[in-house]
């Protein structure tokens, strides 16, 4: 079965130039283990709001690609968020749910996806046009590349094994991450603007 860490590793290079929002727990920890970048923001609580944060970013910066790495436990707390994503259909947003059918970080309690709830089905029925469920590394990488390349909101459900790191606290402080992320955006928008002026 596919592992989340391997999925992140496979697409890590593609994240350059994207704004990346992750949820708490294993996703945040594993992405940091591959190398933290100033364009990564880890929402280390507020379960369910990763996708909403991505939506706010994507709507305010329509020229900027935004990637959200979500999880089944988190998105199950904000299924209504799928309907809001679908309603505004930000074409620059890629939404990935790592579905390990488990609340892993609190001891591995099974979520409702373990008993048949289908998150891609929820996404599609909410009105998201581009959805996909993937179970192999090859399919995941293709789906992610397609999503980045296409000009439409995409929701990918990646079925992964319920394994994660030993601990979840990392060296990076929450506020340091938050201020660095905002500064990165400020700097990149200023540079884009300057570049645009030069072109004129």
């Amino acid at each position, binding site marked *: 079965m596919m592992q989340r860490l391997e999925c992140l590793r496979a697409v890590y290079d593609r994240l350059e130039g994207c704004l990346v929002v992750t949820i708490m727990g294993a996703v945040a920890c594993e992405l940091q283990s591959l190398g933290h970048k100033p364009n990564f923001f880890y929402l280390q609580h507020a379960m369910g*709001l990763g996708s*909403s944060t991505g939506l706010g*970013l994507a709507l305010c910066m329509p020229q900027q690609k935004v990637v959200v790495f979500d999880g089944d436990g988190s998105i199950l707390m904000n299924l*209504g968020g799928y309907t*809001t994503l679908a309603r505004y259909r930000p074409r620059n947003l890629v939404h990935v749910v790592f579905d390990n059918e488990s609340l892993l970080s609190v001891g591995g309690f099974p979520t409702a996806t373990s008993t048949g709830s289908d998150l891609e089905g929820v996404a599609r029925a909410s009105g998201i046009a581009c959805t996909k469920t993937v179970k192999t590394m090859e399919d995941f990488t293709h789906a992610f590349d397609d999503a980045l390349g296409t000009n439409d909101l995409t929701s990918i459900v990646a079925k992964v094994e319920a394994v994660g790191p030993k601990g979840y606290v990392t060296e990076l402080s*929450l506020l340091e991450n938050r201020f660095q992320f*905002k500064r990165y*955006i400020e700097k990149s928008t200023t540079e884009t603007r300057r570049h645009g002026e030069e072109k004129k």
Partner: protein
Amino acid sequence: MPVSLNNSEVVYQALKKCGIGLVSALPETWLVHLLRMAEDDPQMILVRLAKEEEGVGISAGAHFAGVKSAMLMQNHGFLASINGIVSFAQLYRIPLLMLISYRGHFGERDPWQTQGGGATEPLLRALGIPYSFLDDPAKVEKRIAEAQTWAYASLHPVALLLTRELMWEEPA
């Protein structure tokens, strides 16, 4: 409908003057005109929510993107947003400007609003969220501007309670 169109306009213009570029909202009776104004304004990004807590994430995203935002919600929407307010806005020091319609207070006829009315201010105090009232149209602009100034200075959520006096024109 006895929701004050004039005072809704005063509130909306005050938000515009503060440079608000994104409004998240969940419809509620007192907010109908404000929502329509946001919808008709090509300069405003309006995000209609399924649940108010989403607005915390959307406002945080907007803040990171350098866009000033406001959340429009009923006090029951505030109650529904508390985890997001605490574990995102307060934890990560996001300046949230929340405009909350203060239902269930004196003059309220809808029985279902009354319990939430009683809980609103005690909860704002418990969370350490400074709040003020929008009750006089002459003071709306200044009060919204001052609340926003404080939110950005402190990087913390702030609440303005839209009162019956301001929003409702029907005699009690």
